[in-house]
């Protein structure tokens, strides 16, 4: 555990190696990346096991000296960190492996793996940061990693736009985080989590300040985790290669927001308003994204919106004091959503399109991918016995127990939608007949399927570490020795579980009837309420609204400033020079060449002086 800091370094090393020698290694670069991540995976598992028994470990060194105050950098291994380490390094490892097959034949593989390495390094660094400043640093770095990978196909205008959008949108959030943490520092005198919490404990910080800073920090989380209103970048981020979507935009980075809120939980917990904000935003995002997911036709976008909505769930959980629930769902979601993306990637790899309208009847053709995808779908839909079921259940209970009844029902509806659109997706892709003829559809190589298998297994079993029936190991362990985080397991009324199961099954049923059995026509909604359909289809025109307001506003300001630049700044300068020139001109004119004028002027000058002298009676 003392050397946990090594974990992020392996990917960093691979990043640097690939930068230097990538050109020569070519395809072989894949192995560098895979090995590096494997190393960190192994190490983080060891650390986790160690952490199960031993207490939190923390080590720091001076990073920056400002006068007499010293900012430190270091690492910390507590329950949450250890868990995250494993999740991140695991998914990252699997994705690295998967990409070996997926990216096969692309001549920029070294670059790809270099970027992956950079991202993994940043993500791992993020999860072991002991203080806000360091968190922020890696927070930004993961952003860059994601930016680079989204823009991996740099020659595509769409990819360029998406990358830019992703970076800027998240940066808006980051600024919130920055302000929040600086304010917090001047309140508590430290960036260290524990010291901040201590200060909050003893009420060194005023209530309003807590709320303010908490919300500011939450804005950061909103940006990263694609919560409403900063969610628009996440769907576009699908421009990146699919494994990237699986790693960054499903399992790890987007979950960083949740992780941040989780690790700042004591601060949030100290302010009702903040908690409520988190909960509301979360719940709203959940349902909001789910509705959009209902009508998307791009396989990856559907998944993207489901990710947004699932993250909303986690926020809701944290917002309802469901610390464990949130983290739990974060974990399970990491597995099944990664699985789904990888599976989707394998589908795309097979049929070379992302439009589900064109797919169909792939069940027989993709004998591996199909079942794996199904597992993922079941898990996310919250079908009993799958991991998603337990975590989602925890969240609902938390919401109810915390008294957010309205939000609770929202979440339930969202769960129904989730089940529906996920199975809509499943049926449209795998059941029925192919809606467009596709040649040489083939199953992906094992290097791609194996990672999926691993994830599938986890997607099934991961739930059992924390269940109402077999006890909540995870929960108890997470909150152990830190009551500020709430109880390991929140007891809730039993009917919630029933309801959850019911809605998910209902959703599946509906989807089945619409898209597989076709007993209900597919354009049921679009025909009845075309406007609503249009709105939802266009993601509530959020992008358009932003373009009309924010982007346009910035442009307008710029133009106004240019106006100032030209007419005020430059104008004054021109005026002065012109004045001087004019003065010179007149002066030159007076030198008419008439010698007597000269004499006269001299005399006039003398006269004037003498007159002034005479009038003032002498001496000024």
């Amino acid at each position, binding site marked *: 555990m003392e050397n946990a800091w090594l974990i992020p370094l392996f990917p960093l090393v691979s990043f640097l190696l690939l930068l230097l020698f990538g050109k020569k290694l070519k395809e072989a670069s894949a192995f560098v990346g895979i090995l590096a991540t494997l190393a960190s995976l192994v190490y983080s598992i060891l650390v986790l096991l160690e952490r199960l028994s031993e207490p939190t470990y923390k080590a720091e060194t001076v990073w920056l000296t400002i006068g007499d105050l010293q900012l430190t950098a270091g690492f910390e291994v507590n329950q949450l960190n250890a868990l995250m380490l494993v999740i991140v390094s695991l998914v990252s490892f699997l994705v690295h492996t998967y990409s070996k097959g997926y990216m096969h034949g692309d001549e920029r593989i070294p670059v790809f793996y270099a970027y992956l390495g950079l991202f993994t390094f940043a993500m791992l660094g993020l999860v072991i940061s002991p203080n806000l400043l360091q968190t922020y640093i890696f927070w930004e770095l993961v952003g860059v990693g994601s930016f680079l990978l989204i823009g991996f196909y740099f020659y595509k205008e769409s990819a360029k736009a998406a990358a830019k959008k992703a970076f800027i949108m998240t940066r808006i959030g980051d600024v919130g985080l920055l302000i929040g943490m600086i304010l917090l520092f001047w309140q508590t005198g430290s960036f260290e989590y524990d010291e901040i919490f201590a200060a909050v404990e003893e009420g060194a910080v005023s209530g309003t300040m807590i709320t303010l800073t908490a919300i500011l920090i939450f804005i950061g989380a909103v940006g990263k985790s694609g919560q409403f209103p900063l969610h628009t970048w996440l769907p576009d981020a699908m421009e990146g290669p699919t494994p990237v979507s699986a790693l960054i935009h499903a399992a790890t980075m987007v979950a960083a927001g949740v992780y941040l809120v989780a690790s700042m939980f004591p601060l949030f917990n100290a302010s009702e308003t903040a908690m409520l904000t988190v909960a509301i935003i979360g719940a709203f995002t959940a349902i909001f994204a789910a509705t959009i997911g209902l009508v998307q036709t791009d396989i990856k976008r559907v998944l993207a919106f489901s990710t947004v909505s699932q993250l909303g769930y986690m926020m809701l959980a944290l917002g309802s004091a469901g610390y464990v629930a949130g983290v739990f769902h974060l974990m399970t979601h990491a597995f099944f959503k990664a699985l789904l993306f990888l599976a989707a990637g394998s589908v795309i790899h097979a049929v070379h399109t992302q439009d589900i309208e064109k797919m169909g009847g792939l069940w027989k053709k993709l004998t591996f991918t199909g079942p794996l995808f199904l597992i993922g779908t079941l898990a996310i839909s919250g079908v009993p016995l799958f991991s998603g079921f337990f975590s989602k259940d925890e969240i609902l209970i938390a919401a109810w127990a915390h008294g957010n009844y309205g939000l609770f029902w929202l979440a339930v509806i969202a769960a129904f939608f989730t089940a529906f659109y996920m199975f809509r997706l499943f049926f449209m892709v795998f059941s029925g007949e192919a809606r467009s003829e596709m040649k040489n559809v083939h199953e992906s190589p094992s290097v791609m399927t194996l990672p999926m298998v691993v994830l599938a297994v986890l997607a099934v079993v991961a739930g059992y570490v924390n269940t109402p029936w077999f006890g909540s190991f995870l929960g108890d362990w997470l909150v152990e020795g830190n009551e500020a985080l709430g109880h390991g397991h929140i007891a809730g009324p039993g009917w919630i579980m029933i309801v959850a199961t019911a809605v998910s099954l209902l959703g599946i049923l509906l989807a089945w009837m619409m898209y597989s059995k076709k007993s209900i026509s597919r354009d049921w909604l679009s025909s009845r309420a075309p406007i609503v359909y249009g709105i939802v289809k266009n993601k509530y025109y959020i992008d358009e609204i932003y373009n009309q307001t924010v982007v346009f506003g910035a442009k307008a300001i710029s133009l106004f400033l*240019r106006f100032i630049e030209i007419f005020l700044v430059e104008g004054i300068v021109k005026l002065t020079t012109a004045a001087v020139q004019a003065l010179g001109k007149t002066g030159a004119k007076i030198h008419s060449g008439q010698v007597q004028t000269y004499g006269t002027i001299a005399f006039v000058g003398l006269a004037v002086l003498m007159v002034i002298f005479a009038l003032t009676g002498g001496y000024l």
Partner: protein
Amino acid sequence: MDFNYFLTLLVFSPLLGILLLAFMPKANESGIKMLGVLATLPSLILALIAYFSYRGGNDLANFSEKFRWIQFGGQGAEQSGMFSVNYELGIDGFGLVMVVLTAVIATLAALASFHIKKEWKGYYMLFLLLEIGMLGVFTSQNLILFFLFFEITLIPMFFLIGKWGYYEKEKAAYSFLIYNGLGSAILLIVIMVLFSRTGTSNIEMLRMILNTENAPLVAPVSESLKMGLLIALLVAFGVKLPIFPLHSWMLRVHVEAPPSIVMIHSGILLKIGAFGLIRFGMGIFPEQFADLTVLLAVLGVINLLYGAFLAFIQTDFKMVLAYSSISHMGIVLIGLGANNEAGIQGAIFQVVSHGLISALLFFLVGVMYERTHTTTLANLGGLAKGMPIASGFLLAGAMASLGLPGMSGFVSEFMAFFGLFKEMPVLAAVGTLGIIMTAVYLLRAVLAITYGKAEREFVGISDVRSFEWAPILVLVGLIVLIGVYPNVLSEPLQATLETILMGIGG
């Protein structure tokens, strides 16, 4: 180790190069270029020696030198120690950092000057003269000596812009000359008022005299006069920095001057403004300075936003960078406005880091211009295909400049805002809008150049080659080094900070 004449050697070593160049045949291009680069090395080496011997525990006081130079006002004045201007060089932590920065960038710019197409001889002679001026500015302990070096930077720049620049070079050279002429004129007034009313021009002496009650003076210096002088200083250095309404000259320079010169210009010359403000503004008039902090902070935020928003709509990459320089100098002002440890250190960091970053960016501009012969965003695009490495570094430079953690830009930006949030949170919050805008305009510009469809004619072009590696690697290296372990920079500064803060009483 004995350090007599060390600084003199350091400052005037380029002179050797000038003399040797004078005897070079005009035509011998490669020889001249080689010599030009070599001539910048001695001062670089000496600067590094100074740095490491300081980190090795050597006291910087050992470096200072002092000789009798000019004596005004006759023996009577001399006996009373009045009106004597000594030739005195010396460095503190801040000066040391700036000297190292200057030496490094000068060498790299000399390399970058390989792109120069004509009359290398005159070019390098002026270039070296310019370097002498800059080194002198950062080492002189005496206002009049400072001014002398300050002006020495002016004249070579005028010629370098006017002779080796692009289409509107003469116009640019003139507006450079006139604006800076006005600036230094005001500066001269301040210097002379101080000198002739206190009888000394030594910075330390002035600090003491002006901040002790009823110290012996030639003529009274009232509080209001001090304030007036400080404001004059602000204007004088505001032209150099530049501060918002006084900036139009530097746009022209950025666009018209050859990239290698712009490296120097935005890398170091602009920084003289900040250096002066900290060294003289804060150093000599701490109390009055404390009253101006709000003004400074506001100006800083204005600079930051004004530059950022205008950079957002530029169509020429050089213009984008020019406005980005304005915007980044805003951060320096913000730091000074905070007027506390974090802020001032942030300002100094920003001075250094922006020096490195803009040098890097403009070097890359030079590299790309040499291949594509354009800097108009509309005509560029997809360079990442033709010259991936250069594009990669360009992206890195942009990231550094928009304050990506792990690079120097972040540390300075963070500290500046960190400091300001302590003093005036609301203003700082407004300022953070600039952080977003920076990302917006930089990505817009850089992606427009590197990403997207590749222009047909840019497919066959060569990537970074031979001598071009050195500047890129060195600069990136330093940027990352400072970003990852800022203490390399902050530790030498602590002593300086303390003296300044003592003045402020902070």
